């Protein structure tokens, strides 16, 4: 549904992402807002934003492979870990600059991801999902049993720097994270409206028909895994340099399950959905986090630790509700809202 009164006169215009003056204003406005955010945002909010953006990067990757290409992967945290450890090892053991290590760690994670995608030649759906769980554990096993990664202890990492300027505070590294998130979002959005993206969706919706159309499905599945894991690797690398510590315990299967939850809540196959899903579930986490001390005061019998249990409980409940009542996620709700706003006062 186009905004009313907007017509596309050329095909270029028809395939544009940003099409009206209003859109441009909105886009520039929100970018501007994001860029000045550290000037006034409290520490806590900034930390949350950093966290959200890194999660967005990782979940964007997952969206490409799972939401768009239909190959479910629970292994995303492992690929994140590959990126993080690769980057950490490069910077600390080999003295390579962060700026080179960042893309390299993405590529490294992508290559490991190819191993994760290899079973997709013969299996799909649930079987593949189990395969990614196996890949997850094996990757983590290898990481924790290598010497160079510091094993279980992990490594301590330096903050990135340009010359003498060190990105060592949350507001400084925020800009790196923000810019990379924007680039990667832009990339993902474009990918999906171009040839490769259409093929991904084709494979998801009907892999046999896609094959009849001349799509080498295995190649594209691998490509989807590569891109997805590239995103995860970048996210992992950013995460470890923001954190300045990399440790295998930061990447658990639960994270992978959470990521899947995020794309379900956000809406499978939708890029805005990634943002919706990540922000929704993150804020829910925060809510639980803030709420649980009060809850403990209210019902002392719960003990001091309901945050963790409430967290998963609410997460599970939200997923159940979404799967039953809105399987297409928040992105779909958003579309409905947009449409009804645009055709107001008519009803959809």
């Amino acid at each position: 549904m186009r905004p009313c009164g907007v017509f596309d006169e050329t095909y270029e215009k028809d395939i544009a992402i940003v099409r009206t003056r209003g859109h441009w204003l909105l886009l520039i406005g929100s970018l501007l807002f994001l860029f000045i955010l550290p000037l006034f945002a409290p520490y806590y909010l900034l930390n949350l934003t950093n966290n959200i953006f890194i999660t967005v990067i990782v979940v964007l990757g997952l969206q490409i492979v799972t939401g768009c290409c239909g190959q479910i992967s629970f292994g995303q945290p492992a690929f994140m870990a590959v990126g993080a450890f690769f980057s950490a090892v490069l910077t600390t053991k080999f003295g390579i600059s962060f700026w080179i290590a960042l893309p390299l760690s993405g590529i490294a994670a992508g290559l490991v991801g190819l191993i994760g995608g290899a079973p997709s030649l013969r299996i799909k759906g649930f079987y593949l999902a189990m395969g990614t769980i196996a890949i997850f554990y094996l990757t983590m096993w290898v990481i924790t049993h290598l010497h160079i990664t510091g094993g279980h202890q992990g490594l301590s990492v330096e903050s990135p720097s340009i010359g003498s300027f060190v990105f060592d505070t949350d507001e400084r590294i925020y800009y790196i994270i923000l810019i990379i998130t924007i680039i990667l979002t832009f990339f993902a959005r474009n990918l999906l409206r171009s040839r490769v993206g259409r093929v991904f969706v084709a494979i998801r919706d009907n892999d046999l028909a896609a094959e009849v159309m001349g799509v080498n499905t295995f190649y594209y599945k691998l490509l989807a895994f590569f891109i997805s894991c590239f995103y995860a690797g970048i996210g992992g690398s950013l995460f470890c340099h923001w954190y300045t510590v990399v440790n295998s315990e930061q990447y658990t299967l639960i994270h992978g399950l959470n990521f899947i939850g995020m794309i379900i809540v956000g809406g499978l196959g939708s890029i805005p959905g990634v943002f919706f899903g990540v922000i929704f579930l993150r804020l829910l986490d925060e809510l639980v986090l803030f709420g649980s001390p009060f809850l403990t005061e209210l019902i002392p019998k719960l003990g001091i630790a309901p945050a963790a249990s409430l967290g998963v409980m609410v997460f599970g409940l939200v997923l159940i509700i979404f799967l039953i009542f809105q399987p297409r996620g928040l992105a779909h709700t958003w579309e409905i809202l947009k449409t009804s706003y645009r055709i107001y006062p008519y009803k959809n």
Partner: protein
Amino acid sequence: MKTNFFCFTKPAFLLVSIICVSFLLFQPATSLAKPNVFPVGVIADLTGPYAPTVGPFSPGVQDGIQYINEELGGIDGVKMKAYIRDNTGKASLGLQQYTELVELKPKALFLAVAHAPTGEAVTKKAAKDGIILYCGATVPSLYPAENAYGFYPLYEEMIGGAVKIARRKWMKKRNPRAAILTWDTSYGRSMMTQEFFDYCKKINVDIVAKELFGIRDIDVTTQMVRIRSKKPDWIMTCIAGGGYMLIMKAAQELNMNVKMVTHVGLESMVQVNPELFEGAIYGTAMRSFHENNHPGINKIKEYMKKNNRSKKEEVMFYTLGWEYVLIVHKVVSDVVKKVGWSNLTTELLKKEMSSLTNFMPLEGIVKTTYTPKRRTTRWGLPCEVFNGKIRYLLDPKGVFIELPDLRPTKYR
């Protein structure tokens, strides 16, 4: 035409509202005059694999604060208040909670982090934010130290203390043979250091096997079979909760006659199955709950009773909670006494903290010494399970001994 107009103004409207919201988020900083409350933070994994050990930390902090507020009149009349967060074993959540606690008004100057990966992640930040960290001692970045102080001796030092005493009690002519069987995690592996091995060698204990098992394993027989072939006298381990049961049950089933040599993690399991752990020797840094007439322990027990704490909370981390707030109380009181509330700085607190010597609160439930170079205490208490009960070794009244210094060599 009308809707067209809306299309155009909507983004502008949104922009304005975003800016409005952002102003709401903006709050001016406050200065530190004498505050109404003195907040202390706690981030711990109160759920997760280490929870049986770490969990009681939070009631310990709460009860300790209650004691300080009720009986010691707070810190110079200022009541203490605990902000406790469960990071559920996730470092990312821990970091998030850290930022939340940092933004408290007034700021929480002390923060206890019982989750090692979180501790590592916030060490550098805490130095910048002017916060004194009190955290688990496995953190390797603790030694360059920044603002971090350790809870208790290193795990391997506590085990080292136990080995030391066990060696002293060893009667046979030959060297005792010890096998290591521990979790395949950073915590479990913390005893697998060269320093620890060297120390064992130095005191003539032969390490004959080094085995690992997974935190979710339901059977350790394979490892035990290999260990059995080495005929060990002791099994040394660094685990928590059910892991102890798993090991000793397997040893029992394989008809092995071994003693467990470990650290305080065992204490919570002794009451569950005393026979299984008969003869086990472990090192701790705290007085044990088995004592009935120690005034400090009695005080603690009084508060436990008052707050309906259960038997399962009678473990070291509970006492550790007390120690934490008592140290905070002592350090802040001393500094405030010297310079007053308005001149209270992190630097001064840190200086005071680093010169803490043989601090023994509550008639000596614990003995703490910090130096600028070594930020963990080295005082420990060796214990033994004897006739199903816990008793102190060396001196039945309990005397703190100096544990072997097993810090990584590069940080000495």
